[in-house]
């Protein structure tokens, strides 16, 4: 694609976003909505920038990120582990498959009250909910990636004298990395969303709690700020994972 086509494509992509913000501003400027219900975009973004530099707000982001990464890491470890085991061993597969089939479409957020009762109102219940939600995309994509490894690769490794246990880590795992990373991307965005929702439902700190507090006092500006912050965090983490992906997969044919 030449540079000119690329520029026009980028412009075309920016257009709806600009239109949306323009519409938002216009609704306010023309007086269709009271400013207390829909604060103008300039005000919201100014407030966002101002908040990002205050210690209290950074602390809330820190709490949210801590829960997010704790839950996500548990999900990655369990998901990749169980997924590989299910792909490698037929007996594990026979056990895991029906359980996953039942648990994957279960709305995990419904378990949250039970987690609150069992684990208390602190970090543990939220981290567990995040892990439960992020687990399945990672587990499934690991499993699908690992079970679609070209059989010839496995045979060649065995013919070259690699013991079966090492075949799993030297052949199957690296070949499944693209699929695992796709699962991790889905899982990461889900983690962002779930940690925020869990904090909104019951919490005393974190970004989700900020939104709820603002909603109780009808501070519309302060309702937008945490919501935009968590979405930006999602975009940034997604981009970071994309960078890790293109570094890890630099030798792979199609990424």
């Amino acid at each position, binding site marked *: 694609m030449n540079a000119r086509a690329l520029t026009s*494509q980028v412009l*075309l*992509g*920016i*257009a*709806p*976003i600009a239109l*949306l913000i323009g519409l938002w501003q216009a609704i306010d400027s023309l007086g269709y909505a009271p400013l207390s*219900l*829909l604060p103008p975009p300039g005000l919201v973004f100014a407030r966002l920038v101002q908040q990002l530099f205050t210690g209290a707000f950074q602390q809330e982001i820190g709490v949210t990120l801590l829960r997010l990464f704790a839950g996500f890491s548990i999900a990655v470890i369990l998901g990749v582990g169980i997924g590989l085991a299910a792909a490698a061993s037929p007996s594990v597969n*026979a056990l895991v498959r*029906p*359980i*996953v*089939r*039942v*648990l*994957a*479409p*279960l*709305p*995990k*957020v*419904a*378990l949250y*009250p*039970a987690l*609150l*009762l*069992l684990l208390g109102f602190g970090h543990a219940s939220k981290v567990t909910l995040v892990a439960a*939600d992020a687990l*399945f*995309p990672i587990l*499934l994509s690991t499993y*699908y990636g690992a079970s679609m490894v070209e059989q010839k690769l496995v045979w060649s490794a065995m013919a070259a004298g690699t013991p079966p246990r090492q075949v799993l880590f030297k052949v199957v795992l690296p070949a499944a990395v693209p699929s695992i990373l*796709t699962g991790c991307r*889905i899982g990461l*965005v889900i983690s*962002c*969303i*779930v940690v*925020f*929702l869990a904090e*909104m*439902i019951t919490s005393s700190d974190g970004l*989700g709690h900020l*939104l*709820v507090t603002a*909603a109780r006092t*009808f501070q*519309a500006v302060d*309702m*937008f700020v945490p*919501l935009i912050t*968590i*979405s930006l*965090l*999602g*975009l940034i983490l*997604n981009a970071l994972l994309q960078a890790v992906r293109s570094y890890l997969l630099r030798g792979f044919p199609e990424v």
Partner: protein
Amino acid sequence: MISARAILSRSASLLACLGLLGIWQIGALILNTESFPTALEALRAIPSILGDKEALINILASLRRMAVGFALALVVSIPLGLMMGRSRAIASFFNPLLMIIYPVPKAALMPIIMLWLGVGDIAKTLVIFLGVSLPVIYHSFQGARAVEEKMLWSGAAMGLSALQRMIRIVLPAALPEILTGCRTGLVLALITMITSEMIARQSGAGNILFNALDMGQYDTVFAMIIIVGAMGIGLDAAFENLRGRLVRWSEPRFDIPLSFS
């Protein structure tokens, strides 16, 4: 005809359910605290919830909103996704916007939308609509993009207009992928419904859960969890059945879609 394998896989899911309930029962017996009732106690509380007229009306109202939100999302998202898949200009127009919307927690919009539209059905349905739209758009987009060009050329050569090609070639060819998106969307509709009700705490199944939690009716909490879980599993199984009938010619790539959350 149902093959032996199908019977086995069906009974395997049932066995998994029973196994999970068994683990719960044993875990609760070992922990033996008041706040964690056994599976049997929770199951015994289900008839009293479903027999309570007010609770039943609440749950049915939730399901109705969910169905309306889901249906509206399909009506908007499938044509949009298909058009994005067939036209590069439309795709590059919408893609960045959708990418920005993707990480926004949809159920978290509930307080803001309630501020604008009140606590009525419109706000709740809108949130469900938003939650369902993205996966359906994404899968329709992928499905339409993968349509064989030759079929479209043949269609054009035989004098089909652009709209006719879209309906008679692209739609059927992309149907398996679209239905995968719908399956994810259906579960997401349920999730968004429960989550937004938990946040708004006005009415509905999510509200019953937290009211019971506040009042310390622990067996009701766990019974509601079973009901909601059964809804998720039941809806998914029913849709999978429908999908199997509609696109029997297409083997699903994966039997469980990745994008549940």
